[in-house]
């Protein structure tokens, strides 16, 4: 997973995440939107055949005083927590 920061200020972050697709990007976006201090989160990805920017670009905006990069880290934590919690619930039912 190669990252390339496209734009960065205190409350805004645009970052390219190479090698990922909707599977993970939509999950992380969904988790970011539920994260405290995040005002906007979205991602954009173009099809393989377009020949242009085909790696997804994640864009995050945060409230004043919340660092966007830290918010992204909180988002990844939320996904890990979701996955663990799902695994626990699934194994309990199985």
């Amino acid at each position, binding site marked *: 997973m190669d*990252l390339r920061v496209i734009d960065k200020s205190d409350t805004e972050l645009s970052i390219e995440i190479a090698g990922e697709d909707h599977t993970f990007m939509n*999950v992380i976006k969904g988790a970011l939107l539920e*994260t405290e201090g995040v005002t906007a989160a979205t991602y954009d990805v173009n099809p393989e055949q377009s020949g242009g920017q085909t790696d997804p670009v994640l864009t995050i905006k945060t409230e004043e005083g919340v660092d966007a990069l830290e918010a992204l880290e909180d988002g990844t934590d939320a996904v890990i927590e979701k996955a663990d*919690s799902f695994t626990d619930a699934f194994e309990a039912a199985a």
Partner: protein
Amino acid sequence: MTQDYEVEFVERGEREARILVRGITPAFANGIRRAMVADVPTFSIDTVRVIENTSVMFNEQIGLRLGLVPLTTDLDDFEIGDEVTLSLSVDGPSTAYSSDLVSSDPMVEAADDNIPIIDLKEGQRLEVEADAVLDTGREHAKHQGGVAVGYRHLQQVEVVGDLGEFEDDDPNILRGVIEEQAAEHAAGDATNGELVATDEFDNDLRNRYPGKDVEVSDVPNAFVFHVETDGSFTTEELVLRAVETLRDRATELKDAVQL
């Protein structure tokens, strides 16, 4: 932020299951579905060395057919890129089946015994050596462990009144799983809260609630996954591995961001 999921099996089998998950967001549900289809690796024959092929088909056609044979995969013992060699040697007149594949590793063998590869006539012979490789559905569809993987909202049915005596008796078709909320109106034995697959009443709500006017609505954040595997591993393994791939990617991104 704590998440609590509730998981319940509606139907449960080695190769096919219906699993209800409550408290899940559409984004996460779709992430799991996509991961099951494209990111959980399975073994599949990828390279074929033809020793003798006097059958009526080209080597390439035989190669394609061999590639599509599902092979059992134990993901604890292998990682992506690992190879296992199999061989097949059949003399006509007879049919070469997937069960004729002899594996060098007993953990990787044909998941089904009865897949025909080619019908051989008198004097025809097929002998090949093949390398199966572990890879993901993203690379090639033959590596997909999950087939027909999807989900639907859990649904609930509300009885809003009686049907008029002379009203048109149109079918009211519904597919998926309902959570019983109007047991007193249901035909046969029913208790509120039980999960009923719609095929139990032939997918027609008229059979479940005779003479009643009903309204159907989705239960928010409750999804019923339909999971079917090609036999490479069990449905449970597929779901858990799919969630694990999402977790791994989140961990990888977290580590990358921290640097």
